[in-house]
């Protein structure tokens, strides 16, 4: 997934090969990850697709089915991965992920600790931020989920950057081998205040911690615990709004014919039929339904010792 290996880097010359991970784009809201194999076949509403037809094509090309329907073959990125990965737990989406990566001040070479791993959505973006010389140590107390995460990192080519450990961070804290090694720590736990003292020991001076909690009571307890070791404690909410864009038709009032045009117009709108009666313009508005809340993000910097 990451361009660390120059032969795998995205380019006009790069061709899809047997064994590559491809994101199949059917619609903007329908995508799935597929590993290309010589004999592989994809069946969907557009028909049947042979993987062998894909081999040798460029990423970003159209691929056609036996019926003439088509899909796009995209190169995987952490953003696309977040949209297609299998949810074993509730995941973090791009708005929270991006803000966390920025606020944790992650750059190549950083060491970051994470708990819980969950489905690895954030982990993938953490790995991208610290590649190629940094490392992500991620922990989950659920053995099966940790194993699934490891498999995912294999599939996406991130295994060299991510170490998944099975550990109860709330109960035991982070392992001693990592004392003072972390540039940043990320917590997504039900009771993060139990892990905060350990996190403080793992961090380098002026290192940054982030705790993600859906409930305000959790945030309050976490902030209390943070005061002992941390400064610059800030809590945020971040959400993404999307817009729909289309061509619109707004006839002048003077040209309309009272109720008769209005009724004709209603019928047209219902049939989604926009004939050129007025000026065509591109119009935009917010999408109707949007997420109201994911969680609160609390950030803090480790106090500087004298």
């Amino acid at each position: 997934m990451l361009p660390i290996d120059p032969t795998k880097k995205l380019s006009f010359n790069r061709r899809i090969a047997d064994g590559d991970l491809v994101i199949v784009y059917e619609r903007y809201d329908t995508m799935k990850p597929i590993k290309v194999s010589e004999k592989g076949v994809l069946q969907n509403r557009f028909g049947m697709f042979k993987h062998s037809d894909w081999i040798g094509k460029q990423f970003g090309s159209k691929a056609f089915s036996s019926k003439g329907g088509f899909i796009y073959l995209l190169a995987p990125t952490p953003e696309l991965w977040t949209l297609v990965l299998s949810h074993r737990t509730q995941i973090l989406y791009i708005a929270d992920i991006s803000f966390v990566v920025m606020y944790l001040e992650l750059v190549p070479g950083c060491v970051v600790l994470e708990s819980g791993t969950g489905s690895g959505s954030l982990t993938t973006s953490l790995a991208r931020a610290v590649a190629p010389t940094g490392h992500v140590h991620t922990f989950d107390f659920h053995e099966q989920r940790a194993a699934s995460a490891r498999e995912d990192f294999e599939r996406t080519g991130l295994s060299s950057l991510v170490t998944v450990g099975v550990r109860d961070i709330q109960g035991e804290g982070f392992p001693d081998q990592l004392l003072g090694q972390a540039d940043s720590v990320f917590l997504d736990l039900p009771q993060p205040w139990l892990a905060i003292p350990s996190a403080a020991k793992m961090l380098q001076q002026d290192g940054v911690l982030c705790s993600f909690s859906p409930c305000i009571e959790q945030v309050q307890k976490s902030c209390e615990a943070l005061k002992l070791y941390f400064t610059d404690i800030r809590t945020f909410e971040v959400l993404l709004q999307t817009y729909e864009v289309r061509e619109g038709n707004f006839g002048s009032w003077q040209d309309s014919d009272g109720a008769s045009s209005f009724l004709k117009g209603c019928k047209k709108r219902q049939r989604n039929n926009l004939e050129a009666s007025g000026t065509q313009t591109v119009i935009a508005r917010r999408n109707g339904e949007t997420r109201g809340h994911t969680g609160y993000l609390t950030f803090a910097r480790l106090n500087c010792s004298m």
Partner: protein
Amino acid sequence: MSSKNSDETLSGNRNPRITWEGCSVLLDINDGDRVLFSRLNGGAKIKIGNKNCSLQPLIGCPFGSSFQVDVGEDGPFLSRVGPASEGNNLGEKMDCEVMEECRDNRALVDNNTAQTLTGEDIDEMRRKGVTGDEIVEALIANSATFDKKTAFSQEKYRIKKQKKYAPRILVRRPFARSICEAYFKKQGEKIGFLRVDTLSLLLSFANVTSHSDVLVLDMLDGLITGAVAERLGGMGYVCNTYCGMTPYPINIVRMFNFSNETCKKIVHASLSELQPSSRSENSTSIDQIEDDSDIGKVQNKEMSSPSTIDLVSNIESGKSIKAGDKAPLDAINSWKENGFSSLIIAAPDLDAWSIAKELVPLLSYSAPFVIYHQYLQPLATCMHNLQTEKMAISLQISESWLREYQVLPSRTHPHMQMSSSGGYLLTGIRITASEKSPA
């Protein structure tokens, strides 16, 4: 004269968590009330209250250190103090009082008669060398209404007096996050009102990572260039493009404390040089002449205008920055052959579509692009055109919503002020030219 610390290796790699002579710092005065970029040179000074203090004591200290003004024989100087203790000590006392709080403000009249210490008394104390903290205690002791206030009100009073008489300076590492926040708060127009959460989304959508080749049209004085270079870590390139001969200024890049390797990867090339039909040899010779007169490098005369002084002090104008060289020929040829791995456009005053239609074709297929604009309509038009021309899929216009919270016992609520707009992003993925279905 720079203080060598044990962490400096032979190759000259210093511990990035400790300040060094000549480094760029972000000075946070009184918890974000005033924010200032500075360079820790020998003669660097800061004006606090009405005193001028040298910044020399800051050199060689860890980022995150706090300083307060102390008075000595040679005048006021900055001395290092431990982390803010008000939070902790007061905190415990506060929790008990909160439970039994029965005071309120019904009898308090705000007529400026409560405080018995006069301005002259305070000046006299200062001359005698009384510390800021002691002055604050004296003010509290001489206030007739202090004990009648609620615990919250007392804390607010104490913090207010401390900020005035015992200001604290926090030394911060300049990072994309803090640089963006500082500019957004104080000089938003310089960065096209790009808010930090929108910037973070932009970097994710553009898949910026080391070993990428990122094409950027940055008219935000280099904020985006710097943020991208930070994520590249010296591996890969960020190439600034422009029409004509002169690259856009990228002064903000100076704030980042980039190493030489990273600076070398911040380059520029004009549109005509990057397009496949151009004859590379000819265009470089034309630009060579311009380079010699240093137009290509940054010389910012705007730095001395009054509005910028508060934000940027001691950063020499007129000194050209190490970053922003012409892109080497082998890199340009490589980009023509392979395409860029992503594209970022941030041009507040230009038509987005006129730029996108020239630059999107320079991207590899399946590569993402992000266009930032402060206004929605230009992006809507651009998105419509990209759709009609079938140049991209997964097109989306997004806006990020950000709210900060105050979290304190019994006083948790969102901040009273909030930014309502951080700009819009148009994102998409480039696709190959449309093919017909094999009949």
